[in-house]
């Protein structure tokens, strides 16, 4: 039963809300407010943390957990299946390859970086498609319907979107792993901290939980062309900039594909959807059925 308990998210280093990541985010916020008091009052206000939108996030977090565990995980094909399929196809097509060029340490570095970069790249594109393909946008609107942002807003995601991200994960990790197994056999590994890819761990430490918050923590403009700052993700959540900053950890994809918006260029952030749409997303049931209602009853499909 312990395995199916949503609070495990806070003690699992693989999760965004792992307690260590939350503490480091709080520390970053403290440092931020030490120099900039502007948003301090808002962040300490119960109006933010107990806002109906925030409360909905908390409830949805638990419901969403069970939907994922019992309905989605069994459907999503595993990364291992993909990896072994890719490896087998490469083997059958190109014959056996014996690595004699790279040391074990070099392979670990390459594999660690490849997993991170490929995953971040596919994450960028799926996120972008969720915004640009009208059918998918209906599901992604759930996430953008959050009027206030808290770290738990990260989990305000429709199950259909979870499913897509699950497939994205399996395909990208499976592909990279399959290629590495082909070239390096069983001798592949990842540099990890607490079982998490070291790059993900480092990025998670540096304010990943501030992405969904009202702490407008930004990096110098030069760095924001390479790494997405919390403020840049908040910009993505503001109504006028839904089409900017799709990136996860890296900003290079936004930079390359023309969707980058730097923090210094945006001052006012207004979260949520248009006022007229908001009442479609104010309960758990509505969050779950709104996309279908809009697509099928609203006339987009029927």
């Amino acid at each position, binding site marked *: 039963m312990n395995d199916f308990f949503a609070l495990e998210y806070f003690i699992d280093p693989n999760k965004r809300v792992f307690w260590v990541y939350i503490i480091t985010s709080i520390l970053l916020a403290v440092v931020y407010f030490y120099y900039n008091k502007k948003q301090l009052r808002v962040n300490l206000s119960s109006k933010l943390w107990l806002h109906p939108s925030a409360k909905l996030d908390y409830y949805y977090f638990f419901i969403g957990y069970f939907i994922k565990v019992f309905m989605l995980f069994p459907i999503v094909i595993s990364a291992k299946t993909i990896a072994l399929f890719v490896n087998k196809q490469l083997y059958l097509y190109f014959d*056996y390859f014996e690595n004699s060029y790279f040391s074990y340490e070099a392979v670990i570095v390459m594999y660690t970086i490849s997993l991170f970069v490929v995953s971040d790249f596919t994450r960028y594109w799926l996120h972008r498609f969720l915004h640009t393909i009208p059918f998918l946008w209906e599901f992604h609107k759930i996430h953008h319907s959050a009027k206030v942002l808290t770290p738990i807003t990260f989990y305000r995601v429709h199950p259909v979107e979870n499913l897509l991200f699950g497939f994205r*994960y399996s395909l990208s990790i499976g592909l990279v792993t399959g290629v590495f197994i082909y070239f390096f*056999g*069983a001798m*592949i590994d990842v540099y990890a901290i607490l*079982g*998490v890819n070291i790059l993900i761990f480092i990025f998670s430490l540096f304010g990943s939980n501030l992405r969904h918050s009202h702490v407008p923590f930004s990096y110098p403009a030069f760095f924001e062309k390479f790494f997405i700052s919390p403020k840049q993700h908040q910009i993505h959540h503001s109504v006028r900039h839904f089409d900017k900053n799709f990136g996860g950890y890296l900003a290079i994809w936004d930079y390359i594909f023309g969707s980058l918006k730097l923090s210094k260029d945006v001052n006012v952030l207004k979260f949520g959807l248009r006022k007229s749409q908001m009442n479609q997303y104010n309960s758990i049931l509505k969050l779950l059925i709104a996309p279908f209602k809009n697509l099928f009853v609203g006339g987009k499909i029927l």
Partner: protein
Amino acid sequence: MKKILFTSLVAASTLFGATSLESVLKNVSIPDVDAAIKDAKTLQKDINTKNYEELVSSWKKVEALYFAGDINEDYIDTPRYIDVFHNLKENLSEQMQRAIDSKDEPKIALFKNSFKTINALEYVLYNDDKITKREKALTVEILNTMISNLEDIKAIYKEYLAGEKKSEKWENAMIINTLIASSYRLKEWRIGDASGNSTKYKNSIDNRRAEYFLSKNSFNAIKAILEAHEEVIGNKDYYNFASMAKEAGAGKQVKEAQDAILKINEEINKLENDDFTKAKDLFKAAKTLHFAYYLSLIEELSVTAKILDADGD
């Protein structure tokens, strides 16, 4: 839902106190190197074809399960200082004939690394029916180098057992990679090239491509390699890779590999006199062994390279 990062075959061996690699090094690798050193010394003292045959057999076992290059990268090329099969573009026979004909001291005549290998030794001993005084002197010198390299390999294994260990995951991955590479060379180089079944020599049969064509030790070498594989993947009294893999739930895959080894032995016993002209079934059996390692056993690796929440953003 325990999140285990890219866990390889389960580390159940800790129950036994030693990992499969430690046990294999102790029970297989070091005794095999010792046997090869002993055979080399015996051949030095009593130079005859029977003793050469023994050395081929013991060396092939060491080569098939060569872990020293992974344990210490400085020794990655050591097997090539002992054996240049499939790794030499020059005509070794011509060069060795010149070394035999030369009047230089053996040490000077054998100036290249490839001249001090088991393949060079084969030419020295089998280029004609007689073993001359000069050939004996060259043999002693070649064997001195071989023994020195074998001693190095033994030292690496002993050092590893006495020193700091790498992770068991790494050890098991190295063993499976070694078995995969060895079974590929067995299939393609040692059987396929001569029998016309390899990718390179498809439908072109030529016994001269066999590993020990001159001494007719090619089947002997293949049998020795299979014995080495059997030592790590067979059912043994000591803890080996098979024991670990079975405990990790890969019993079916281990059985597949064991059956393939039996089949290769069966097929090779049907053939005579190092003749690969009818070795199609032998090749097929070797292919099955390679597949068993590569496509079946490697599938047991648990590939769960967690990234972080597949939840969106």
